[in-house]
Structures are given as structure tokens and as C-alpha cells.
């Protein structure tokens, strides 16, 4: 059973009289334990793809399944519940709630689903290196710290799927590598499916698969080749 499956998924938008095909008919699967990078120029349909995968919008045609459940045909209420349990979102600008301290960001999850088992907060904070920041508010954190807390928040309810929309956009290279490394480790150790949309081609060395979206069309790339190419370039630079 695939973690995410797109079956003949198509998404169109109306813009005045013209119809824009944000995503052309797509068949696509991500298995548990896979770390997939989505690359492509802006406006190519990357975000559309991610929001379809996260059930934030419904496809015009076709079906999106997560863990075998037909996700895209459910009502928003059911989708929200599934999202809450099964999907962790990591957004471009951190998705933290400004008036909650770091530890309360996670406590909020407890309040909403008190019956569910969650990961240990301390362990998670330790793992992400933010255990000293638990009393601080997002505005007091640096971009990197904020993003790491956002990852802690996304991992906290132990989702099977993590969707990351340019999680490194606001970070310097060092921090960016750090964050992607954490995600890669998570996908291998906890057997999670991770889809990361990124502009930064250097980060793909941590990914198992690379998919390029161009004008709404998804093309699977040869990951090894791209990785080698970038590895060589870096060597040359050195």
C-alpha cells in the first residue's frame, strides 16, 4: 500500500475565460520510507501538487489516495481529520502559532487529540536541538530554530506522510542542509513518506527520488545522475 497515490489526477483553474491546467493528468506513487524531491521553476504546479497531496483542495479529475484511503473524495471535515492524524505540514514561512511558546505548539496537539499517543516532546526537542528554547515564542527564535520547531510540530503526531513546501527557503546553506538531513533521517528511521518541494537543487543529494514539474507535467528524473552531477560540481568548486 502506497503512502500517497495519484490516480489520473488533473487540476484545472479558471482564470477569466481561459482554463489553466495547473496539473496535467498525473499518475504517481510515493511509498513509505521514500524521500521525494519535487523541483521545477516557479508557477510550474509544484504547490498545486503539494496541496492536492495534502487534501487542501480537490482534483478536477481523478483520485488522491493516502494509505489506501480515497482522500480526495471525502468531505473537508473528514479530510481535516485525516490531515491532522496522518500528514505533517512544513511550510515555507514557519507554520508556528505566534502566541504559543515552543512547548505549547506541541501541547495544542495534545489538547485537540487527547486520546491519541504522541511522541515524547523532550526526545523530539532534543533530537532537533531546540530543547533549550521550549519557553520561547516564535518571534524570539531565529529562522533556523523556527523551522526546526516547525519540523518538531509536524513530526509530533507521528504522521505517515510529511509534506514540506520549501522548508529551507528562509535558511542559510548550513541550516538548510541540517534541516533536510533531519527529514532524510526521519524518512529512513521512521519509515515515513516525505515529499519536499524545493528550489534548491543542492538539497537533492539527500533524496531517493527526484521529480521535475514543468508546465503541470511531472517527469521522474534519474536521481543518481543528478546527485553525481552536483557532487562533482561541488568537488570542482573545492
Amino acid at each position, binding site marked *: 500500500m502506497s503512502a500517497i497515490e495519484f490516480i489520473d489526477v488533473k487540476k484545472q483553474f479558471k482564470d477569466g475565460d481561459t482554463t489553466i491546467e495547473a496539473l496535467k493528468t498525473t499518475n504517481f506513487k510515493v511509498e513509505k520510507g521514500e524521500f521525494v524531491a519535487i523541483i521545477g521553476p516557479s508557477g510550474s504546479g509544484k*504547490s498545486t501538487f503539494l*496541496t492536492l497531496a*495534502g487534501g*487542501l*483542495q480537490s482534483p478536477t479529475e481523478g483520485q488522491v489516495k493516502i494509505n489506501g484511503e480515497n482522500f480526495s473524495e471525502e468531505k473537508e*471535515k473528514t479530510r*481535516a*481529520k*485525516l*490531515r*491532522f*492524524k496522518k*500528514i505533517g*505540514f512544513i*511550510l515555507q514561512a514557519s*507554520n508556528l*502559532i*505566534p*502566541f*504559543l*511558546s515552543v512547548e*505549547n505548539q506541541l*501541547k*495544542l496537539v495534545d*489538547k*485537540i487529540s487527547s486520546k491519541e499517543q504522541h511522541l515524547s516532546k523532550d526526545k523530539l526537542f532534543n533530537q532537533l536541538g531546540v530543547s533549550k528554547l521550549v519557553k520561547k*515564542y516564535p518571534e524570539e527564535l531565529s529562522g533556523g530554530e523556527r523551522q526546526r520547531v516547525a519540523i518538531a510540530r509536524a513530526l509530533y503526531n507521528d504522521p505517515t506522510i510529511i509534506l514540506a*513546501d520549501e522548508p529551507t527557503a528562509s535558511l542559510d546553506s548550513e541550516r538548510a542542509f541540517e534541516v533536510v538531513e533531519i527529514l532524510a533521517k526521519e524518512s529512513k528511521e521512521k519509515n515515513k513518506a516525505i515529499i519536499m518541494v524545493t528550489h534548491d537543487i543542492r538539497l537533492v543529494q539527500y533524496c531517493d527520488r527526484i521529480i521535475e514539474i514543468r508546465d503541470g507535467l511531472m517527469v521522474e528524473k534519474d536521481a543518481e545522475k543528478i546527485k553525481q552531477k552536483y557532487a562533482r560540481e561541488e568537488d570542482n568548486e573545492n
Partner: protein
Amino acid sequence: MFLAWNEIKHAKLRYSLVMGVMFLIAYLVFFLTGLAYGLAQDNRTAIDKWQADTILLSKEANSNLNMSMIARKELDNVDAKNKALLAQTPGVIVDNSSEDNEKIDVSFLGIEADSFLAPKIVEGKMFASNDEVVADSSVKEQYGIKIGDELSLSGNEKKLTVVGFTENAKFSVSPVLYTSINAFQEIRFEKEDTSENARINGIVIRGPLAAYPDDLEKISVGNFINDLPGYSAQVLTFGFMIGFLIVIAAIVIGIFVYVLTMQKQKIFGVMKAQGISSGYIAKSVIVQTFLLAFVGVVIGALTSILTSFLLPAAVPYQNNYLFLIGVSILMLLFAVSGALFSVRTIVKIDPLKAIG
């Protein structure tokens, strides 16, 4: 509750300001309620003291005690277990014992000392002769009249000596002076009339009334109070002011909550993308509104209670705990209903926009 409270704690200034506005409106409502209640009480406490059910007035009097004239002997034609003669006239007194000769507007109630209309004496004794009078204690507090003081009447030769005080005896916003029926004759008509045709104003009945003469009109004490000159107008005026203020409070807090909700649209969108339901977010906004309103109303209520101790006795201000609680509950209900129209906005927030 978790979200609501943590946000209030985090943005202390913003939320204290909202609470401050709520407090000011609540205080204004409570203050007006206190004034309205106090003024209403000043119209009627003397009547409430009777603990009576019915009053008989002459038919042509149109519920106006002063205009009703009944012969004393009519009392015998009224078939009721507890019945009492009542005579009333407004008057102006001057305290001869004080030096400034201040004139005081009062209301004389002529009663029989042994009837159930006789007030409870808190100081001194009940009047025993036609020259003695029992006064409402407010004349003591406000004008310094003491037991033993001799009062003279404006436009009248009669002199009266204060022999006792009672509490909470006001009629049409004037302090009441209780005299005998005979003394009343001298005050009102300037001559004694001990005959059975002596004129009085009404007959008060406590409990069941079996039969009464045809030329008298039976009025319940409740209606009699409502028909006191000016009483309904005052109560209605204040009632409308208080009612509108409560509605305005609801609108003001509704607008605050709406603006705050609009500001937090993006945050709410992110929360929805994470799968937090609109219901949870809406609940937290409503709980937050309730908390803000609750704190404002409670501080308002406490301040109004404090105010009642600081105001001079001349201000007819009186707190009634039943009204205080009732108005508080109304304000809270209305404030929360003001928050309800933000719920629609929350439901309509598209999580997609928060991400894009």
C-alpha cells in the same frame, strides 16, 4: 480554552484594552441600573413596607392616591381581615431646631398606629399623640433632624415633634413622615375632624378582599405603584437606556472580535491546513470572548458595588444583587452572540490561501 488563554497571556496589552472597554461599558450599565433601581425604590419603599396586596381608592381618582377622597366610615363596609386606613399628602417642613431653617419636601402618611401600616421603628418610639411624628431615617442622615426636634409646617400653624425613625420609607422620592389620621386632618385641611366622615385617601388591604363598596375601585398594589405619577416613565427611560447599552456592548465586542479574527486569518489558515477543525478554532474564539467579557463585567460589577459606598446619600443609587447578576448574565450572553458573526469568517477561511 488553551488557545484562548495563551493568546490573552501573550498579547496582554491588546486584550487588556478590550477588557477595559468591556469594563467601562459594564460599569456604565451597572451604574445606570443602580441609579434606576435607587430612583424606583425612592418612589415606592414606603408602599413596599406595607406588604399589602390591594388598595381601594375612589373611582374618579384614576389610581391617584392624592385625588382619592373617602370617608373614614367606609372602612366598615370593606370585608377583609387585614384592612387599614391610609391618608397621604405632600408637605413642606422646617426643622425649628436647626439654625438654617432649611425647607424639606416630605410626604405625610396618615395611619392608625395600631394598623398593619405602622412602620417598624428603628430608633425612638411610635407616635402616640396628634403632635408626634415618625420620620424616615433619610431626614436624619441628610438634614440632621433628631428625635425631639420640633418641625413646623409651611403654610400651617401645626407643629410636630419627631419621636421615632423608621428605615426605607420613601414615597414619590420624598421621605415619609408618619402621623395619626387626626394629625393628617390638621395638616391637610387645617382643622381637626374626628367624625366618621373625616376624609382619608384610601384603604389598604393585606390578604384576601371579600367585598367592598361600589363607589370604590380595587387596584392591586403592583398596578398602584406603576401608576404613581412619573414612575413608569422613569423605569421605562432607564430600562431602554440599559437595554440599548447592553446591545451596544455586544456590538462593540463583536467588532473587536471580528477585527482580531481578521488579523489572525493567516494563522487560522495554517491551523486549518494542519487539520485543526474550524469548530475548534471557533470554540476558542468564543471562549476568548467570554473570558474578556467575563473579566470586564466582573470588574464592572465590583466597581459599581464600591461606588455605592462612595456616593453621597442624596444620590438615589442602590445596588440590587438580583439585577446585578441578571444584567451580568445578559451582557455575557450578548457579548458571546456578538462573537458569533466572526465564526462565519473562520469557517470560510481557505487553508490553501495560508499556504500559497
